[in-house]
Each structure stands twice: as structure tokens, then as C-alpha cells.
């Protein structure tokens, strides 16, 4: 029953938070978040077999009602905000949903099915999401909103957690569709939260793009009902016929939309205008994580052509998104593109479908969430405490706040370097793909994409990190005080990352020496040497050919011509079409 | 070596009429300190692929006079102009000093009057 608690409690919390003053709200929020974390942890520990929960029949009617209400709201929003795409897709969905309701499936299963993946997702959603909410407490205070709106923001985040908890527990594709649309709604509201023009535009963009996913799910529903007589994931996957994978492919496309893979990447990048906690919650804990989750659910059904194509598309997106990120300067945009890249990697790993690959995917989901949340926190701190948004301006941050630099460094290092989780996941990804090449040489391309992509990502991250380090010795260090609401969540995430090294041992991938020796040697010995050697060191100026001029420094700028960007998008769309047409044939 | 004397105010027009960049090669601007605090400024040209054909336009002026710039006609004259400013302490339109000399070195070393 903890699952039901996880779904319902946040709604309750949201209602409580709505009407309190600042200090009470903060205390309540922290308590609630702790509760959610504890419950999800208990759920994870006590979990032994897949739990199936059936829901009463009238639930279905409520969902249908809510669904229509939601779609109508979208349609209305499209009309009011004069965005024809939004209305168009809402209209299509209304019609398609009506068709779905007319068709009657015969095979039934339980509505809620909680398996291992779901329980891990609970952990990610509730713990990381909770920490983000705590972080948001301070962040939202510095925004120019009314008190109610500030509280509502926190409440919305709680609601978001509830929806996410539900979405990872549901087994019914119809319910899944509703929740999918609900996350779309929340993202729409949260992105537009600042109510200025760009926010609204980007929110509408997110709205219509996400509705493509809704259309795909509805189409999948229709096909699934007509062909397989069911609206349930487990039955669909059990009965799947390898010759007719269309519903799976349509759901995969829905995942690609939610995961903001390359042709659909605009919405996630547009979401950057929202307050930073929203970006954090979208990127790390909720929303986009639906994509790999859905993939993981569908993984057993994928085989042969679909598996290879999805893997290739995913790795291609991984590679190109990291490439595109190289040419960006806006800190959050860099983070966003790297999220897109890593999501694509998760999806392709899920599509590979071997146990190793799925394990890698899960590790990636968890640690990516932690690292990205940490980095978005720092982006928020940079924005609020230092008024910096662009990477080119963060030169010499180490003079002002070594702590933030440390967090950013850990964040980036955890995404690239041993012995952190994401590194381990990439490692497993390469290993699992190497196993697969023998079966299908096309995986070699996927492997090359992963290799190139991870190098690009490393390049990207260290391009940013290096800016922090360019220390000016003579500058008067101006230390900036950073609120505990910012630093404590960051510190907790860092602790998680460090604890996560445990997973490296647990997976039996590397020997203990391989993990521990570098850490000790790299951390301790140089410091020892340095303290010995600094004693009689002299400090000199940098070599500047004997000249005394001020030096202008800037990091390497990658110019990405328009035609390459277009070529990337066209290739990605082509990949999708190949997927669909290939399945149809 | 043909030498043509021109008045200071006419020098730019004179050179503009004369100078064809595919026919004449601009050598340099030369200054010669004369007696009585006078200065002779020469614009020296040579003809491409001709035997010993050197054309010198010169003016006689005071150190105080503003010497007009020929950079618009001959872009490469800029460095010669900077040199003559440094060496003679004269003023040339649109050119700055400091090509060779530092603040604490001997100023206008070649001018007749400073020694």
C-alpha cells in the first residue's frame, strides 16, 4: 500500500502547503519531503515480488472525464493563446481518444503494477525530487511573485511528484496517457510560471510538442486494441508478435518526444526560461525520466530491427546532442543538451535489452538524476548569487566561491570520470554493446557514436570546468555567502554521489583496487608533495613573451554551421521514419 | 634621381596626380634637417622595371608645420609617416608617434634644432 501512499500523499501535502506562511511552509515541506523519502526507501527495501493492484471500475470513468477535461483545456489554451498547433493536436487527440473509447479491449489485467524498475523510479522521484523542492523553497523567495503564487509553486512541485509516482506504477496505457498529458500540463504551467512573453512562447512550444507524444500513445492504443485486444502493458508485451511491432514503435516515439530526442529537443531547451528548480525537476527527477522508463517497460518486446534502429537513433542523438552542446554558451542550455544526450543513451541502452544494458540504463537513470540536479542547483546559485548565466563569464569563480566550484566540479566529474556511477554505466554500456556487435555488426556504429559522444561530453564538461579554474592570483578574493537552502541540498547530493561509488563495487565490474587506488593516490599523494614543495617556492608572473599587456582569455568556441544542425535534425527525423516504415513493412 | 620641389599645401594633390600604383613604387618618406630650423621632407618613388628612374617630390617646411598625410593614396606610407614623426618631432596628419622611441629616450633625434 506504500505505493498508493506515494501517489496520494503529495496531493495532500500540496494542499497543506498552499495556505501557510513562509517559515511554516518551509518546515512542513522539509518534513513532507523527508516522509516521502522514507516511504519510498521503505518501499524499495521491503519490496519482494511484483505488486499488482486492481482499481474499482468507476475509476475508469473519472479518468475518461479528466482526460476530456484536460484535452479541452489544451484546446482552449490553444485558442486563447492563438497557437494553432496546440489546438490542432488537442483536437486530433480528442478525436482519437473518442475512437479509443469506442473500441473495447477484451483482455484485462490489473491497473497498477509495481516492479523493480518502478521502485527504483520511486526512489529517484521522491528523494531527488524532494531535495529539489527544498532547494526551490529558497529559490522561489527571490522571485517577484505573490505569496500565494510562491506557495502554489511548491504545491505544484508536490503534485508533479504525485503524478510521477502514479505514472511509474500504472499498467494501463489509457491511464498512462492521462498521466502523460498531466505531466505535459504541469510542465506547461511551470514553464509559463514567470508569465512573461518568452516563457509563454516556450510553454506553448512544450505543450504542442508533448502532445505529439500523446497522439502517438493514442495511435498505439488503437492499434493495440484492434490487434492485441488489450490496453495493458504487461499483456501487450507478453502477447507481442515480432512481426507486428507497430504499437511498440508508436510508444517508443512517444518516449522520444518526452525524452526530447533530437527532432523534439526544442521544448526542453525552451523550458530553460522557467525558474531553475523547474529545470532541475524536469531534467533530473521527473518528466524526461518517463522516456527511459517507458523504454525499459517496452524493452522485452523489442527485438531485431526495432531494437537495432532505436539503439542507433538513440546513440546518434547521444552523439549529436553532445556535439551541439559544444557550441553553446548558456550554462543551462549546455546542461539541457547533455541531458538530451544522456536520455538518448538511456533509451538506446533500454532498447538493446540485454540484462547488462538494462542494468546500465538503471544506473544511468539514478546517477544522472543526482548529478544533473546538483548541476542545476549550481546553475541556480550562479544565477541568483552571482548573476551569471553564461559560461564565458564564470571565469575565475574559484576566487569567489570555492564551494560552488567544488560542487560543479563534482557534478561534472561524476558525469564523466571513474569511479562515479555515470562512468560505470557508460562502461557497462560499452561492454554490453561489444557483446552485441557479434550478433549485429550495425551495433558497431552505435558503439562509435557512444565513444564519440562520451568524448564530446567530456570535452564539453571540462570546457566549462576549466573556466572556473582560470585563477587570477592578484584579484582581491570576494567571497559570496551562499544560503544553506542552496548548499545543504547540494551537499546531500554530493554525499549520494560518493555513496554511489558503492554501486561500482556491487556490480563486480571492477576490482576494488581499480576503484580505490586512484582515489587515494590522486587525492592524497599530490597534496603531500605539494605541501613539501611549496615551502621554498617563489611566485612568478605568467609567461607572456616578456610583455606586460593584459591577456584576454576565452575558451574554445565551436562554431556549428546551420546546415550541420539541419542535417542532424533531418537525419534524426529520417531515422524515426525508417523506424515506422520499417515496422509497417 | 629627379627632384621636384612642391609647396607644402600642394603636395597631396601633386602626388595624387602623379602616383599610379601599377607604375610607380613608393619607396619612403625621407626627412633632411636643413639649416635655420628648416626641414626638407621628401616623398621618394621609383618606377617599376625601369633603369634607375627615381622620382623625388620634396617640400621645405618648418618643424611646426602640419605635414599632410598621403595614406589615402598610398596605404603603405603609414609606417614611413610614423617614423618621420619619431625622428623629427614633426606632426603628420592622422599618424601617431611611438614607433621606435620610448618616453624616456631622446626625442626627435634627427631634427637639427634639438641638439
Amino acid at each position: 500500500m506504500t505505493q498508493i501512499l506515494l501517489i496520494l500523499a503529495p496531493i495532500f501535502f500540496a494542499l497543506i502547503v498552499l495556505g501557510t506562511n513562509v517559515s511554516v511552509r518551509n518546515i512542513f515541506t522539509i518534513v513532507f519531503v523527508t516522509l516521502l523519502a522514507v516511504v519510498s526507501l521503505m518501499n524499495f527495501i521491503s519490496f519482494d515480488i511484483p505488486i499488482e493492484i486492481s482499481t474499482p471500475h468507476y475509476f475508469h470513468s473519472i479518468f475518461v472525464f479528466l482526460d476530456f477535461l484536460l484535452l479541452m483545456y489544451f484546446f482552449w489554451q490553444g485558442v486563447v493563446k492563438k497557437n494553432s498547433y496546440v489546438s490542432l493536436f488537442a483536437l486530433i487527440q480528442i478525436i482519437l481518444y473518442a475512437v479509443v473509447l469506442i473500441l473495447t479491449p477484451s483482455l484485462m489485467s490489473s491497473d497498477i503494477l509495481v516492479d523493480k524498475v518502478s521502485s527504483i523510479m520511486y526512489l529517484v522521484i521522491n528523494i531527488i525530487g524532494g531535495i529539489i523542492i527544498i532547494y526551490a523553497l529558497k529559490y522561489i523567495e527571490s522571485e517577484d511573485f505573490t505569496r500565494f503564487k510562491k506557495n502554489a509553486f511548491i504545491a505544484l512541485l508536490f503534485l508533479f511528484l504525485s503524478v510521477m509516482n502514479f505514472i511509474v506504477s500504472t499498467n494501463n496505457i489509457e491511464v498512462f496517457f492521462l498521466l502523460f498529458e498531466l505531466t505535459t500540463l504541469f510542465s506547461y504551467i511551470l514553464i509559463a510560471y514567470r508569465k512573461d512573453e518568452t516563457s509563454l512562447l516556450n510553454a506553448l512550444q512544450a505543450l504542442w510538442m508533448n502532445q505529439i507524444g500523446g497522439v502517438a500513445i493514442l495511435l498505439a492504443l488503437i492499434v493495440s486494441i484492434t490487434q492485441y485486444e488489450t490496453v495493458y502493458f504487461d499483456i501487450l508485451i507478453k502477447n507481442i508478435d515480432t512481426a507486428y511491432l507497430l504499437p511498440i514503435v508508436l510508444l517508443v516515439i512517444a518516449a522520444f518526444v518526452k525524452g526530447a530526442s533530437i527532432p523534439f529537443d526544442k521544448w526542453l531547451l525552451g523550458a530553460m526560461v522557467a525558474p531553475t528548480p523547474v529545470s532541475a525537476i524536469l531534467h533530473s527527477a521527473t518528466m524526461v525520466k518517463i522516456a527511459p522508463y517507458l523504454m525499459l517497460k517496452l524493452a522485452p518486446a523489442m527485438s531485431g530491427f526495432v531494437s537495432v534502429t532505436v539503439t542507433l537513433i538513440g546513440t546518434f542523438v547521444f552523439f549529436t546532442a553532445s556535439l551541439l552542446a559544444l557550441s553553446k554558451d548558456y550554462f543551462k542550455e549546455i546542461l539541457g543538451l547533455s541531458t538530451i544526450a544522456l536520455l538518448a543513451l538511456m533509451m538506446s541502452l533500454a532498447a538493446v535489452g540485454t540484462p547488462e544494458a538494462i542494468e546500465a540504463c538503471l544506473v544511468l537513470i539514478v546517477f544522472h538524476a543526482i548529478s544533473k540536479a546538483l548541476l542545476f542547483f549550481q546553475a541556480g546559485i550562479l544565477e541568483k548569487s552571482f548573476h551569471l548565466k553564461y559560461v564565458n563569464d564564470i571565469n575565475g569563480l574559484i576566487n569567489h566561491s570555492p564551494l560552488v566550484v567544488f560542487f560543479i566540479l563534482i557534478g561534472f566529474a561524476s558525469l564523466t570520470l571513474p569511479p562515479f556511477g555515470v562512468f560505470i554505466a557508460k562502461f557497462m554500456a560499452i561492454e554490453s554493446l561489444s557483446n552485441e556487435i557479434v550478433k549485429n555488426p550495425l551495433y558497431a556504429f552505435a558503439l562509435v557514436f557512444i565513444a564519440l559522444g562520451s568524448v564530446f561530453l567530456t570535452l564539453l564538461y571540462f570546457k566549462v570546468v576549466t573556466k572556473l579554474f582560470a585563477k587570477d592570483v592578484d584579484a582581491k578574493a570576494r567571497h559570496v555567502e551562499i544560503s544553506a537552502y542552496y548548499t545543504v541540498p547540494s551537499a546531500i547530493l554530493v554525499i549520494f554521489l560518493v555513496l554511489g561509488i558503492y554501486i561500482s563495487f556491487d556490480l563486480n565490474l571492477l576490482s576494488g583496487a581499480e576503484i580505490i587506488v586512484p582515489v587515494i593516490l590522486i587525492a592524497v599523494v599530490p597534496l603531500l608533495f605539494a605541501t613539501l614543495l611549496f615551502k621554498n617556492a617563489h611566485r612568478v608572473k605568467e609567461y607572456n613573451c616578456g610583455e606586460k599587456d593584459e591577456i584576454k582569455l576565452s575558451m574554445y568556441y565551436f562554431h556549428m554551421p546551420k546546415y550541420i544542425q539541419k542535417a542532424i535534425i533531418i537525419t534524426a527525423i529520417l531515422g524515426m521514419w525508417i523506424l515506422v516504415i520499417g515496422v509497417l513493412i | 634621381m629627379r627632384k621636384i620641389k612642391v609647396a607644402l599645401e600642394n603636395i597631396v594633390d601633386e602626388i595624387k596626380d602623379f602616383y599610379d600604383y601599377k607604375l610607380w613604387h613608393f619607396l619612403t618618406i625621407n626627412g633632411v634637417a636643413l639649416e635655420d630650423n628648416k626641414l626638407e621632407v621628401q616623398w621618394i618613388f621609383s618606377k617599376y622595371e625601369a633603369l634607375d628612374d627615381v622620382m623625388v617630390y620634396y617640400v621645405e617646411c618648418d618643424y611646426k608645420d602640419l605635414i599632410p598625410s598621403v595614406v589615402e593614396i598610398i596605404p603603405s606610407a603609414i609606417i614611413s609617416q610614423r617614423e618621420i614623426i619619431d625622428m623629427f618631432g614633426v606632426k603628420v596628419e592622422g599618424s601617431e608617434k611611438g614607433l621606435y622611441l620610448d618616453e624616456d629616450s631622446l626625442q626627435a633625434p634627427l631634427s637639427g634644432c634639438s641638439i
Partner: protein
Amino acid sequence: MKKTINIPLGSQHISLLEPVRFKFECENEKIVGVDSDVGFVHRGVEKACTTRFKYDAVGYVVARVCGLCAITHSLSYTVAIEQLLDVEVSKKAKYLRVLLLELDRIHSHMLCLSHTCESAGFEAMFMRIMGDRELIMEIQELLTGNRIQFDYISIGGVNRDISLETAKKIVNSLDIVKQKVLGYIDEFTNNWSLSLKFKGIGALTLDEAYRFNAIGPLARASGLHIDVRNEIEYLPYKELGFKMQTHTDGDINARNIIRLNEILNSLEMCNNILAGVPEGEIVVKSKGKPSGESLVRFEAPRGELMYFVKGNATAMLDRVRIKTPTFSSIPAFSHIFMGENYADAPAILASFDPCLSCTAK
């Protein structure tokens, strides 16, 4: 959002022999702006020539304006003084002067080529050319008694005679050098990595060469027919077999090819001289003090060198104006760097064969 960086090249830099400061404004490594300072070597030779030294010693001083084109400097000055004193130099002296001038050109060009290779990161080729250059240096030491500053030319002729024995030795060495130079031409045209580094890099078009009044190999590589050896009667270049070398590409490669061809041409001229050194006095005594103005131009290895000398019938001169080759090329330099990659900058700079001690005097 493109941000530029400033990359300094000099005043002290490993790829520079002389102090010159370039400050490149770069986007990534593409040069979008050049700021140069060429005045590091300013010593005040022009003034010293008129105040510190008598006219007969000035020849040795102006030779120290530049070590590489020392011979051209002292020759130009000496000829200018000879014109003022009305001294007619013997044919033998003229021949020997051309011999030294051309030897100097050969070793200077070889140095430039090797330095260009070094700047392009081709250490082996640097070593190869520098090793072979020693042959020319030995010849010069044999002829004049020193490797770099020859002090060979005095007013009225030359300081030292040449014996038949040495002439024979020199001819042998020159033959070896010729073979080596043919080898370089092969290397410079066929080496894949050098063509990546040199072809199409640092190009100057013919029109730009005219506009910027470029001179020397820099201009000839762009197809501009300018060579003072072709424009003066004083030295017997025509009868010694001078041929003007031009190229149309205007890039580093073209400059290298021009230099290599000029070395071959100079070798040929040296052989012609050594085959028939005329009999006669090597030095003619001069009388009187210089008075009047004279303007003399000669072709230094880097281009046209101009001396303007004004005497006033005393031992001290009124004015010695030195217009050095690199001085004229500086506007063209700054232009060529634009749009190139910083990685090419040292090689481009070396391919100009800049002589800053000439420029700043």
C-alpha cells in the same frame, strides 16, 4: 557570443630570432586583428652616422644595422659615397662585390627557408638546410675572414683579393650546394605535410602587392616584377646571367620556391663570376670629402635597400637615410595575417624573412 583572445607573438618568443611584438586578436585560433610593434631594435644608427662616425667609418657601422644583409648595407653606403666622391671602381672589385652579395643572398635565403621549416615544426628539414648552409658560411669565411660580418667592402673597392686556389675551392662547394638545393625543391614541392602547412597560407595577391608596395621575394611571389638587380646599371648583373624569378600564388610555398630558384640563379651567377674574374686593382684610392646628395638602391636578400646620403664637404655627413626592405613590407605583413590560423603565424612570419634590426635601425 564569440569572444576573442589576444595571443602575443614576441617580443621574446622561441620562433623569433629578433624582438618584434605581434598581438593577434583571435577567435579560437583564427586571426581577426593584428597589432604590431617593430621598434624594439631601434639603436639610432642614422643619427650616429652623422654625429659619431666619420664618413669612412660609417661603412662598418651601417653593416651592423643588420647581420644578414650586412654586405648590401655597406655596399649601398659605399656606392653612395663613391658617387659623391666621383670614384670609379675597377671591374674586378665590382665582380667581387657581386660575388659576396650573391653568396650573402644564398645563405640568407637558406636561413630563411630553414627557419620557415622550423616554424612549421619540421625540425629535420631545418637541420638539413642549416647543415648545408655551413658550406656557404665556410666559403664566406674563406673569402672575407668572418662568417657573418664581412667588412669586405671599402670605399673604392674591396678589402681582400681572391686567389685562384680559393676560387677553385669555392666552385667545388657551390656545386655541392646546387645539388642540395635541387633536393630541397623536390622536398618543398612534394612533401605532403609541408603543402598542408604552406600552400594557400598567407597569400598576397598581385593587386595587394602593388597596393602595399611590397618588395623582394614577398612581391615576386605574388607575380610583381620588382627586383632592383634588374633596375640598376651599376653592377654587371645582366652579363652575369641574372634572371628574375616570379611566381603567381603569393603564398608561403610560392615564397619558398622563389627563394629556392633565386638561390639557383645566384649560384649560377657566382659560378659565372668565378669563371672569369677580371684582372685589375681591387681598391682605388679616393680623395676629397663627400658633398652633395646621392640615392642608391640595391637588392638585399629581402628586397630593395635604399640609401640616401647627403654630404657637406666635411668628414661628417649631413644625413644618412636607410630605407630597409622589411620596413616597406610591414603594412603588407599586418594585412596577410588577417584570417589565417594562429598556428600558421610563426611560419608566415618566418616566410616574410623579416629583418627587424634593419627596420628599426
